[in-house]
């Protein structure tokens, strides 16, 4: 068992020294992190299709082939199950593969390897074999792409024991969380909100650092209502917060599995109201679990029902109406207003 696990899980965020920073977007943060981590640790290999000469359809792996060669940046045949399954084999031999799934909607053919190997190897061996691997997956809508290019089906991962599910919401978060994911001994699904790959820049420390994999982040504190969210929705929640007549606390979950339930309960116990805000379909989207947990452990603190500002229970729709599907600052604002308006 890795000794520094707890360090990676529990990084002290305030200790990160932002002396030197560069202002970059989220996909560049992914690229920088992969670069730094691969430099640091020779056992890291990237696998996926279109990650080599092309540098990834979103350019996340740009330049890495030239830097590290084709034994560490491995363009594979077009099989997601093959990618995940061979990555497992590598991790079984002590390496740290970082496979990429091009779009979340193409993960499904790999579901066999995911269920049979990724999440079960550690248990199956009674702890003898650890499986450190980080599966990078761009996810989410808002990019007017073809079917299965806009999915937000993290529920399939979250319901499954044996894997961490991490999602970053800003460039700086991405760098620290991706590095921590790669360094931890558990398999990690690392979700990248591709809608904000570009367009939102922020200063990011140039040195390597990790952020905790087990702690939600309070984006802003507030006393009236808690918004639980993650990924691309975080900034929409921030936008909505400026626009409502309520003091909004925003929690960026960061770890979707396991959840930082303490932070969640603390926040809702304080505010007494909660809105969950996510892109995924509503039925059994993570909002369901959050709502159920709060109900179980903080019912008497609730001043209003928990509302879920989410996608609808439909297939991701055509381009012409995808904006009507996607939850946005308006939708979360409505939800905040609704819970604020409620009286027992």
């Amino acid at each position: 068992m890795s000794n520094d696990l707890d360090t990676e899980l529990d990084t002290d965020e305030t200790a990160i020294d932002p002396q030197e920073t560069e202002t970059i977007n989220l996909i560049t943060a992914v690229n920088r992190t992969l670069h730094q981590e691969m430099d640091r640790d020779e056992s890291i290999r990237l696998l996926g299709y279109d990650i080599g000469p092309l540098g990834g359809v979103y350019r996340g792996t740009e330049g890495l082939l030239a830097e590290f060669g084709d034994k560490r940046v491995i363009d594979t045949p077009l099989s997601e199950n093959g990618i995940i399954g061979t990555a497992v084999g590598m991790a079984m031999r002590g390496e740290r593969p970082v496979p990429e799934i091009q779009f979340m909607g193409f993960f499904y053919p790999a579901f066999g390897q995911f269920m049979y190997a990724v999440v079960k190897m550690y248990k199956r061996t009674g702890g003898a074999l650890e499986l450190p691997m980080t599966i990078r997956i761009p996810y989410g809508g808002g990019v007017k792409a073809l079917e299965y290019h806009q999915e937000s089906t993290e529920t399939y991962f979250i319901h499954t024991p044996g894997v961490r599910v991490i999602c970053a919401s800003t460039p700086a978060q991405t760098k620290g969380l991706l590095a921590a994911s790669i360094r931890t001994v558990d398999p990690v699904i690392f979700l990248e909100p591709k809608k904000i790959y570009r367009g939102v820049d922020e200063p990011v420390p140039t040195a390597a650092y990790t952020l905790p994999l087990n702690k939600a982040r309070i984006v802003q504190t507030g006393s009236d209502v808690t918004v639980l969210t993650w990924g691309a929705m975080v900034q929409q929640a921030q936008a909505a917060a400026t626009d409502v007549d309520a003091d909004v606390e925003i929690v960026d979950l960061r770890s979707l599995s396991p959840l930082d339930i303490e932070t969640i309960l603390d926040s809702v116990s304080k505010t007494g109201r909660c809105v969950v805000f996510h892109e995924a379909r509503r039925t059994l989207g993570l909002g369901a679990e959050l709502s159920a947990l709060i109900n179980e452990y903080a019912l008497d603190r609730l001043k209003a029902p928990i509302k879920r500002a989410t996608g609808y229970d439909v297939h991701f729709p055509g381009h012409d109406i995808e904006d009507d599907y996607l939850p946005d600052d308006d939708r979360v604002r409505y939800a905040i207003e609704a819970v604020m308006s409620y009286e027992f």
Partner: protein
Amino acid sequence: MAHEMWTEERPPEDFYRILDPNGELQTDPPELDEEELLKLYRTFIATRILEEKMLNMQRSGEVSLVARTLGEEATPLGCAAALQPDDWIFYTYRQTPALLYWKLPMVEVIASATGREPETIAEQVDTEDTPVNFSPDYTPIGTNVVNGVGAAMTDAFNDRDTVTMVFTGDGSTSQGAFHDGMNFAGVFDVPAVIVCQNNQWAISEPAHRQTGSETFAQKADAYGLPSARVDGNDVFAVYETARTAVERARSGNGATFIECVTYRMGAHNTSDNPNRYRDDSEQRAYWEDRDPVDRYETYLRDQGILEDDTEAELRDGINDQVDDAVERVRSISTSEPERMFDTILHGESWRERHQRAELHRELNDMNPFVDFTGEGFDE
């Protein structure tokens, strides 16, 4: 920062060929009358004009994504032409000539590239029954292979003489679903023809990164299926091979796998930039010399079947047809947002009813979250 490019390997050219790159016959041409020969030509040209138009529409934002057939047209065309009415085609996104040959209205082809909600297209475009049946197009690769073989299984079980043709790419052969489809095809002796349109690229991955096998055709061995390997830029060779395979299927002798060797002249689709991963200065010239339309046109002219004025007339006709189709597409309205709830399940559930109402309210500036009793909204 150094930039790596793929080295391309040319696949062996010891394949079946009738019409050589200069438009000269190497052996007897298929028995096709002049009308049929011109129909093939017309479909070639229609494909180029239509796809060119769609490319322009994509640039101007009218359609969202276009994957062209450029340089590969002979493969889907020759294969599709070997079918008979009532047969089935399970295609991907790179078989425009097959669609046009069997009269799928251009308006549908264009409309589906707009990314509109499917019901909108279905409702606003009069979909005519095509002589040959088409599966819907689907994005996830490999999927259609299994579905097509399943469809063919029903023909086998019902002793129908319908033939199902399935198109797949070189890259798609790496999917488990390809394996499943091929394997079931072999076990159940289905009346199907499975075509690998080997354009040597899968987005940025060259064919030699997909498989260690020298040819794709030999993949059929694994399933006990006969196979053929043809010059995919020679519409005659493709047609002849497909015709034999279709006959074999129709007469109850099972499925055939055909590798058609061609080359993707352009980008994977309009969101791709091949200059990042392939240096095709040399390859391009090589494959331009082997262009499927050029050689066919040369042949037709040599035979006196095609003359300048027939060509001009034909192009005019197609241009008009394309323009009409574009007009029709432009007249399709965007979807009603509530469409997203349609055709998911039959009958209306509480959940669907409630979420429809939520969406309706949101669109009408009413708070969609104020139902606290489950009784819905009274506006």
